[in-house]
């Protein structure tokens, strides 16, 4: 066995440049698989993270009759005494923040332009609103007692040519079906780098939002962020929703993202196959050339009594060595390109996907599991690609092989 391995190693060394480029083909294949999978994981992970941080939280408590898509403001569809419910939830160890939010819809208009917006009434002091606070790029964040200020996202500010300090008219639907219009001052302009969200969401202090929508002491939801996403199921189970309320988890509220991820993964599987097929054909080609070049040697080995299985083992050992070399190079290349993609990101702007909060910059994210699975996939494919050339070598008739030109 040692002699076979020694021969295989030296055979690869005989044509170093060819062996190197074959291993490089394996390496590039693996690096591409790592990059592709990390980009998809990064994109999906970021969409989910954005959705949790900005929109759904880990858990929400809503009125049993509340329909998210309608943003109903009827009192029976809202949570009564939301501060009390939120403070009870916030007392749990696993909870990072629990805060009431009121959702409404309306129109933001300046002199001759207007834009449909979703209005978030928030408690400015809650840690759950840190992503908006941290995203202020102009002006300042809201305060709880601000009666005239609102926050507007950067894309909407650009569209309506607004700056911090400008006045703007906001028309809001109220709980009894009327529309109220009031002039607000742009207190600040924020960005979460999520075009879909920033372009259509304005923030008011909760008290002001309740006043303008006539939903006193009511909120659409209790928005809950946990210390860790993995705690969701256990916390959701431990929360006993008061009568007439329902507990919803991020999985239920973000089914679109998880479905999209499943679909994306099946498309990615197809790309994996293409990359692996190219890698495999390069290795098959190299090994077949090697078999033809060494036909006479195969004849000599057969003449001195080496059985076909051992000859096959010799060529398979070469593909194993190419696989090991290629995979090691590929891991270095792959990790480096994932790292670059991770720190620099890839700006995609507004993807225009409705219902999903896609960040404007893709950042690669690679898990250990995924790295192991694509590495094994590449390694096995490379070894399998050695099967046919090895079988070909093992089936050569010694007489024919010995007759071959050197």
């Amino acid at each position, binding site marked *: 066995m040692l002699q076979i391995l020694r021969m295989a190693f030296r055979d690869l060394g005989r044509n170093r440049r060819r062996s190197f480029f074959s291993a490089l083909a394996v390496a590039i294949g693996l690096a591409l698989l790592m990059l592709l999978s990390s980009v998809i994981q990064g994109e999906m992970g970021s969409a989910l993270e954005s959705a949790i941080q900005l929109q759904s939280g880990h858990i929400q408590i809503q009125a049993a009759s509340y329909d998210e898509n309608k943003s109903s403001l009827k009192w029976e569809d809202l949570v009564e005494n939301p501060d009390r419910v939120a403070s009870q939830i916030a007392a749990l160890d696993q909870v990072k923040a629990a805060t009431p939010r009121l959702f409404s819809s309306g129109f933001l208009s300046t002199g001759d332009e207007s834009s449909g917006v979703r209005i978030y009434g928030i408690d400015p002091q809650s840690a759950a609103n840190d992503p908006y606070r941290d995203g202020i790029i102009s002006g300042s964040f809201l305060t709880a007692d601000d009666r005239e200020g609102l926050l507007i996202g950067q894309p909407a500010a650009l569209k309506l040519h607004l700056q911090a300090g400008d006045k703007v008219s906001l028309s809001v639907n109220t709980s009894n079906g009327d529309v109220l219009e009031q002039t607000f001052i742009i207190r600040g302009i924020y960005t979460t780098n999520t075009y879909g969200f920033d372009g259509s969401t304005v923030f008011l202090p909760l008290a002001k939002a309740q006043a303008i929508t006539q939903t006193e002491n009511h909120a659409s939801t209790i928005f809950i962020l946990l210390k860790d996403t993995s705690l969701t199921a256990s916390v959701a189970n431990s929360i006993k929703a008061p009568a007439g309320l329902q507990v919803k988890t991020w999985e239920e509220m973000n089914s679109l993202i998880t479905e999209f991820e499943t679909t994306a993964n099946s498309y990615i599987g197809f790309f994996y196959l293409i990359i692996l097929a190219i890698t495999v054909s390069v290795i098959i080609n190299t090994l077949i050339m090697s078999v033809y070049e060494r036909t006479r040697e195969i004849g000599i080995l057969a003449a001195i009594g*080496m059985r076909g299985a051992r000859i096959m083992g010799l060529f398979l050992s070469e593909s194993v060595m190419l696989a090991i070399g290629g995979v090691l190079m590929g891991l270095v290349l792959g990790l480096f390109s994932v790292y670059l993609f991770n720190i620099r990101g890839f700006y995609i702007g507004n993807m225009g996907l409705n219902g999903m909060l896609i960040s404007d910059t893709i950042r690669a994210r690679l898990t250990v599991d995924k790295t192991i699975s694509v590495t094994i996939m590449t390694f096995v494919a490379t070894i399998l690609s050695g099967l046919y050339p090895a079988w070909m070598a093992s089936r050569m008739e010694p007489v024919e092989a010995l007759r071959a030109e050197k």
Partner: protein
Amino acid sequence: MEVVKIENVARVYQIGKVETKALRGVNLSIENGEFTALVGPSGSGKTTLLQMIGCLDQPTTGKVFINNKDVTSLNRNQRADMRRGTIGFIFQFFALIPTLTAYENVEMPLLLNGHAPAERRERIMELLKAVDLTDRANNRPDQLSGGQQQRVAVARALASKPTLILADEPTANLDTTNGQQVMEIMKRLNKETGVTFIFATHDPRVINYASRVVTLQDGLIEKDTQTR
């Protein structure tokens, strides 16, 4: 004792629509310890006959017996086993594995036969000494002259202590001095170890070393002469 027995062996090659009769019914018996030359012009069937004896090819009709065992009925693996244990080969081209050193080339048959490392080392050094290449043990074929390479091939052929060594034009690619040196080594080893040598040649200087000369012509034995 009869090492090789050939009974009415014919070998017909079909290339396209053309049928070539390389052997046309050869009968031959070789005794243990003989140093036999197969001679004849190109195309007379010398190499084909060696390939039949060496279990590298199978006759179209007839039977080949090696050490009284019918080898025409053996399958691929059994023929490989027969070659490994019983037959050593020396080819016209210096048939060494280019990536292995002289030592490792000689070692190959011993490895295939499962000899222990210490036993292998002793046998290899003994053989390299016999072909006067002890100082070249760690050289690869491309660092050896043609004559030295052929001597390594002789050592390798003898490694597993076969009962029969087949050499196909062993001196054809060597100059006179090296050719003589190889033949003398083969002859000496034949005498010292008693191993049977059959070699194909049409070099008259080589034929002189043979104790028996079998002349082939058009796939048939034309003459069979004991020279000493």
